[in-house]
């Protein structure tokens, strides 16, 4: 149905696509695989008419295909869920679904009720859970992702393109989405599916294409290959994933939360983390993990309860008190609350620790030499692929942006590391790198608290597992021999009103 040959796309000096070939068949799910920066999103943006390829041919159902704009691509029957959210924050979910396509109208007037009804019907048909009347600016990232997906499902597409649609979804939603994808493929839609979760890829996809450095290195049927082979092809070398983490036992108590409430009506939370421990926080979308991390970080004022770090109490609010005490935080939404997209890599990487790069200790004057040296040091530890330090951070691939966002906080005096979905959209090798960073911090005596929606990751990295549901902690156990079922059960457990169960 779709045939791509010899696609080339350059951005200034960077060659993002360097002769890509790909064949997509109707009724099949095609996995597009590759490490961060391999060129997957760029390829899809060529398909969507956002970028125009510098060379190569695209054919759709036998005819030449060269969309001049996203609109042309839509008219050709393609639907996209891009890697980055593309929503209008002030609009409701159902109106967002209509942005860029014809609204329901009568006499030129928008028919809001019909639009709402149609969208609600699509939501219900696919069994997704979403409040459709709220402006999406006030929804969590995961819910926004669901809005994006529903938007692409509004009418029947010839080709559905999903760029890391499950990156911010938890297991349950991801499972639902995979079921939807299978259903659509069975009805004849061609689906292009990008994901870094290989288990998921094997579960849902039929065919695959692997990109490396902008070139197609292999393609074929998933049934005829193996996980290890794919990983080796993506990385260009054999690469062994580390087995389950040896559970580090906690040292002296590092963080102690007691009777903590993030809002008056929410349950209270008690949690203790020892130095050297890596605590994985699991929950379904909206379970309250992000709110908890933000409260610990002092970004949302605490309603009630106390927070003790290394035997000294922290004030209820105030990010700087956390920084001074050696806490670091990485937000879940790199585009909106994490990075400054139109600023340079340098500016973004240096922001949290600007004070380090003074020319003289007593003067708030920066030394550009130190700045560059410092940022170089941060980046070299992360294997980030980039052009120049002064390039906009938005020109990096999603995974590389993520690495910078974490790496800029890592530092020798960190005592508590708060990570909200730190490996979202990160390839397997980088994920291992980030995990190694966490382990190294923990080995150095820091406490690590990370929220994740990926059970695989949870079981692989955490030394202790904490599960939240509806704002309360429903499970808190050491990670030895814990099964997926135990975790999932706790995640769907309706907690007693008073709070903690274990």
């Amino acid at each position, binding site marked *: 149905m779709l045939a791509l040959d010899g696609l080339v796309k350059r951005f200034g000096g960077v060659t993002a696509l360097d002769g890509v070939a790909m064949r997509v068949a109707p009724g099949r799910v095609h996995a597009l695989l590759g490490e961060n920066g391999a060129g997957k999103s760029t390829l899809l943006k060529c398909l969507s008419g956002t970028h125009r390829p510098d060379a190569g041919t695209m054919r759709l159902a036998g005819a030449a295909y060269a969309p001049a704009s996203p609109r042309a691509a839509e008219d050709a029957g393609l639907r996209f869920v891009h890697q980055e959210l593309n*929503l209008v924050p002030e609009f409701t979910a159902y109106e967002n679904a209509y942005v860029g396509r014809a*609204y329901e109208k009568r006499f030129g*007037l*928008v028919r809001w009720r019909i639009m709402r009804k149609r969208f609600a019907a699509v939501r219900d048909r696919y069994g997704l859970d979403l409040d459709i009347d709220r*402006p999406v600016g006030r929804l969590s990232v995961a819910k926004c992702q669901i809005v994006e997906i529903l938007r692409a499902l509004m009418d029947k597409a010839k080709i559905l393109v999903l760029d890391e649609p499950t990156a911010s979804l938890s297991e349950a939603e991801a499972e639902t989405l995979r079921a939807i994808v299978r259903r659509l493929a069975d009805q004849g839609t061609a689906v292009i599916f990008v994901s870094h979760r290989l288990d998921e890829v094997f579960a849902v996809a039929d065919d695959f294409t692997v990109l490396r450095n902008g070139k197609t290195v292999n393609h074929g049927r998933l049934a005829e290959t193996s996980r290890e082979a794919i990983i080796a092809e993506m990385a260009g070398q054999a690469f062994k994933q580390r087995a389950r983490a040896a559970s580090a036992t906690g040292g002296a108590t590092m963080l102690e939360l007691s009777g903590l409430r993030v809002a008056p009506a929410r349950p209270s939370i008690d949690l203790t983390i020892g130095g050297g421990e890596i605590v994985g926080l699991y929950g379904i979308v909206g379970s309250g993990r992000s709110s908890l991390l933000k409260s610990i970080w002092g970004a949302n004022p605490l309603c009630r309860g106390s927070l003790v770090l290394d035997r000294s109490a922290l004030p209820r609010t105030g990010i700087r008190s956390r920084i001074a005490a050696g806490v670091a935080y990485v937000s879940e939404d790199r585009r909106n609350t994490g990075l400054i997209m139109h600023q340079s890599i340098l500016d973004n990487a240096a922001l949290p620790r600007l004070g380090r790069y003074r020319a003289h200790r007593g003067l708030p004057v920066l030394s550009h030499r130190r700045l560059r040296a410092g940022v170089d040091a941060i980046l070299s530890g992360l294997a980030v692929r980039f052009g120049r330090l002064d390039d906009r951070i938005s020109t990096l691939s999603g995974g590389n942006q993520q690495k910078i966002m974490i790496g800029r906080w890592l530092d020798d005096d960190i005592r508590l590391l708060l990570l909200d979905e730190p490996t979202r959209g990160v390839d397997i090798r980088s994920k291992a790198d980030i995990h190694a960073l966490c382990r190294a911090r923990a080995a150095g005596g820091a406490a690590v608290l990370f929220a994740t929606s990926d059970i695989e990751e949870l079981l692989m990295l955490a030394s202790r597992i904490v599960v939240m549901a509806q704002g309360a902690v429903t499970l808190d156990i050491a990670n030895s021999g814990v099964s997926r079922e135990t975790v999932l059960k706790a995640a769907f457990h309706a907690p007693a009103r008073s709070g903690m169960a274990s």
Partner: protein
Amino acid sequence: MAFSARYGTLIGLVAIIALFSALSPASFAQASNLINITQQMSLLAIVALGATFVMALSEFDLSVGAVVSMAGIVSVSLFGAGWGVPVTIAATLAAGFCVGLISGYLIATFRMPSFIVTLAIGTVIGGITFWISDGATLFGNIPVAFRDLGRGTLAGVPVLTLWALAATVLALFVLDWTELGRRVLAIGGNREAARLSGVRVTYNSVWAFALCSLFAAIAGLLLTARLGSAHPTGGNGFLLQAYAAVFLGMTAFRDGQANALGTLLGAAIIAVVANGLTILGVPNYLQDIFTGLIIIGAVLVRNIGHRAS
């Protein structure tokens, strides 16, 4: 959301009216005065409603004042050349519309900052207006039928008030009930997302600018009808006031998006304060001071409520 957060700016207006009514029950709080305020705010409201379209796009149009002035001069010149009322109105509105087309085209196609483009276009328009009028106030030859569009009452309501109401309904309608309006708001909310979703950014942006200029031209015609003369810089004073009204309106409802009802509310606040302070006979420098403080107060009511919630 707390009540004061939701309706804060409206509460501000009510409080201002209550205050003036208490201070001057005999003059301010008369029905005739309140009706008169609706007339006094009408031209500002029309210009500001036009500006609401470009603010919905998250852009600025700083040429509105110049377009108001231009519309006045062009229309009186055409009357002087013997044109009839309908043709003159049509030609003037078309001229206004074209100004917006040009600004919108430059801004949307070349991604130039609207602030600088419209400031420059406003300067060009100002020069042309001056050229046409020779810098003089134009009067005479203005048909009575035209003048009646901007004065007098209809069923007890000032004609200008009716125009302003019609403009409000039109703006409300376009922004809330047409695809054009929604697309403009989508571009204003997240331009890149709108573009990637297939919204024709240039086309819709150009419309927003054209409507803005059109509204300014309407206000210019009504101003001329009202005054019976046209002055080459007579509309320039509307510029900052119109944006003040739009911004007041953006804090009023709907979390920061430009909207027609909010703009009307903003224009009302500005008009009520000016009227009330004049009636109270406050010295002119104190009028400025109070106007500033009252506007800050009106926004503050809402934002303090918002913080608390």
